[in-house]
């Protein structure tokens, strides 16, 4: 067991300080140290996107980021999407049946949030292109794309 390092980061809007080993990935820290199990390990290799989180607003695979890299930065996980109400993306995923087993869902939601923050009015092609780093084995993707388009429309109407 190697020496642990103290890291301060903002996680889902809350100041947080945690101890982690230099070798631990951000995904391990979130899941095993901070008990935020929404981000999933599907491959630990950057292939599947199930561990997607936002690091200072940028979409990353948390399995490819070290926990210590979070120092002084802001992290958003699926647990941070909903306020008192579900985020429009969450509600549209629910209503459009854009999930089945749901293990990829946190990653898709976080990735979709990153997209809509950059591009509130994406074309369907842009949605597909942006989500190409997230794998889903259940849905065939069609309902995911529809849910993101519907959420974008809803968010534009509210804005």
């Amino acid at each position: 067991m190697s020496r642990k390092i103290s890291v301060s980061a903002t996680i889902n809007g809350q100041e947080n300080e945690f101890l982690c080993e230099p070798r631990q990935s951000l995904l391990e820290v979130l899941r095993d140290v901070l008990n935020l199990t929404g981000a999933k390990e599907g491959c630990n290799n950057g292939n599947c996107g199930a561990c997607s989180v936002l690091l200072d607003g940028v979409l990353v695979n948390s399995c490819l980021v070290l926990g210590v890299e979070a120092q002084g930065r802001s992290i958003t996980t699926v647990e941070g999407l909903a306020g008192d109400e579900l985020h429009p993306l969450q509600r549209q995923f629910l209503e459009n049946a854009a999930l089945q087993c749901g293990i990829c869902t946190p990653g898709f939601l976080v990735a979709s949030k990153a997209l809509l923050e950059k591009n509130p009015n994406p074309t369907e092609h842009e949605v597909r292109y942006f989500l190409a780093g997230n794998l889903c084995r259940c849905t065939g993707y069609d309902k995911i794309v529809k849910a993101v388009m519907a959420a974008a429309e809803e968010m534009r109407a509210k804005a």
Partner: protein
Amino acid sequence: MSLGFSLPRIDARAKVIGAADYPGDLHMDGMLHARILWSRRPHARVLDIDLSAARAVPGVVEIFTGADMPRNEYGLVLFDSPVMVSAMRDGRRISTSRFSLPHDPADRTLAFDGIVRHVGEKLALIVAENEESATRARDLIRVTWEDLPVLDSISSALGTDQQLHPHYEGNVIQRYRVRRGDVDAAFAAADIVIEDDYSAGAQEHAYLQPEAGLSYIDEQGRITIQVAGQWTHEDQEQIAHALQLPLEQVRVIYPAIGGAFGGREDMSVQIVLSLATWRLGRPVKMIWSREESILGHHKRHPFVAHARLGATRDGRIVAAQVTMHTDAGPYNYTSNKVLGNATSTCTGPYDIPNVAIDTAAVVTNNPPSGAFRGFGAPQGLFVAETQVNKLAVALGMDPVEVRRINGWRDGTITAFATPVPAGCSLVKTIDACAAETLALPLSPTSAPELRRGRGWAAGHKNIGFSFGFPERSEATIELHGAAEIERAVVSLAGADCGQGAHTAFLQMAAAALDLPLKKIQLQLSDTATSGSSGSASASRLTYMTAGAIDGAAREALAAWGREERPAHAHFVYRPRRTTKIDPETGAGDPNITYAYVAESADVEVDIETGHVRVLNLICADDVGRAVNPQQIIGQIEGAVVQGYGYALLENFVTTGGVIRTGHLSTYLIPSVLDVPERMHSIIVETPDPSGTYGIRGVAELPLMIVAPAIVAAVYDATGVWINDLPLTPERVARALRKDVTHS
């Protein structure tokens, strides 16, 4: 009525906020962590497993091997697999372990001879205070091996005297033989005969949640495991058998399941984690990496086949002959059952008076094969449907018309010499697909390197376990209240692997009890609270559970009428019995009923690169009665995309029994950029007279015929038939070039 409307899934809210717990998300205070030492050799004798250095690693609590298993055997159909392969010198294993077959009275001794027969055999379970210590210890275990010759193909396993498994003489687990009419005479008299060879490789399930589990002793002293599987009660039986414990001493609970598709039907972490908790009395958790997941569970059966199809000039099929071998890997898993389905689909859903089928499941040192969505039907129907598509070309007939002429109808006698179960809707399903497809003509392309084409396929799938298996499904209902029913507690074990089963259960229970949804409380997926629902497989769960819920509801309401409070009912639903088939002729009544599917695919082929793009895929699926249309469309779209992967993309590579595509970077599954640009799903509802509420099933059907539809579309575009799956760009480009050179 709560049937036929798209209730949002009951687990969706927890899943979108990240609160749904999958096995890997569970935590208990004081829990230990486990790792597996895998064989990683396809065929070798284990001379010694030296644990001394590993045991000395700080944090290591215990290391278990096969010698610790009270009964070192498991298997869903036959107990023919060791839980962990132990070293040869371990005399206890060799002398006392007995081979017991639940369906075969012959009790033969299986020499647990210390032989690993595939790369994913387990050798040891390392249990430690933390995962790092377990991993360090695993890497310090020293195994002394003697490598043995590897049989890495069907042909090498059939062409040798070397027997890989003591029970499978000639390296064959199971054969089926079907004979109807006189094929020789019929082929001699046929105007047209289509003859070709076909093959496909393995397919990996690649559910996004790798195997994981948490075992502990519950408050009643039971070994309890929370794991993702497909049949709680089967897991319970396998654990109890290997640990030699009474069933009630073992409890299996399924939390959220991250996809299954047949790949969680077999045992993964269940038995070894239970052993560790039983011996140590402490909670033990294990999570497999993606690479371990691909190493540690079975695949779809690779196959080779030779097929002949004879017809008259007016399009009547008069004879079909198929010889098919599947690669089972070294143990049965469910290979004999998969072979039954391949046998029952390989001549298609057609009225053919003369049939000869010979199939065999062959033992090799490749990774074991087993259940995968479709369960033999994707292989069987790839052969059957491609043969029929070639026949249509040879006849100069519309492929839809050939299917209309020959397709099963009520009363058709199948290759098993018994009638198709009543309610056959094949032609209606084909017509539904055709109407939608023909409304959208294939648009031309002007690019010189691109060719477009359209292909068709149809198919059938048995609902439920077949070939004489005693199908059953249980439900318990308790009605609470005084003057009126205030609350109904419905207990069911059926697994929601992501398909939405639990939401369908809720809707069916509300319908059966005529209660609003909010009065139904489900108790789910726990052997301690529910009787067996059977497996979430064989497209059976909605069909069988409907029967169980309906029966329990009727009995509970009767008890309520007799003023019982609470009114309690437990019901065991049993559909009509099926039979085995005759070993010489194949005569029998092996399947309860069928669902039907038809598809068309429009593709664009780049003749320079060999890349195939699917422009449009239309699927018509007769589900009998749609309990939740939105979830059914989800099943269709997801299955179509898995079928797309099987047809075009998913290339599982082994060399000498060793997996070369062990990650999602090398084993590619479809991404959102790969999938058909337009998918259209049509729900056909022809009530099945045997099914409760008219329900058939859906889960497997849309996958089964994507490959033959795409292969036919590629032919339509290029004039070249490709008989081997998957149609990778390399394979397509090579086939197109070969055709140019030859013509």
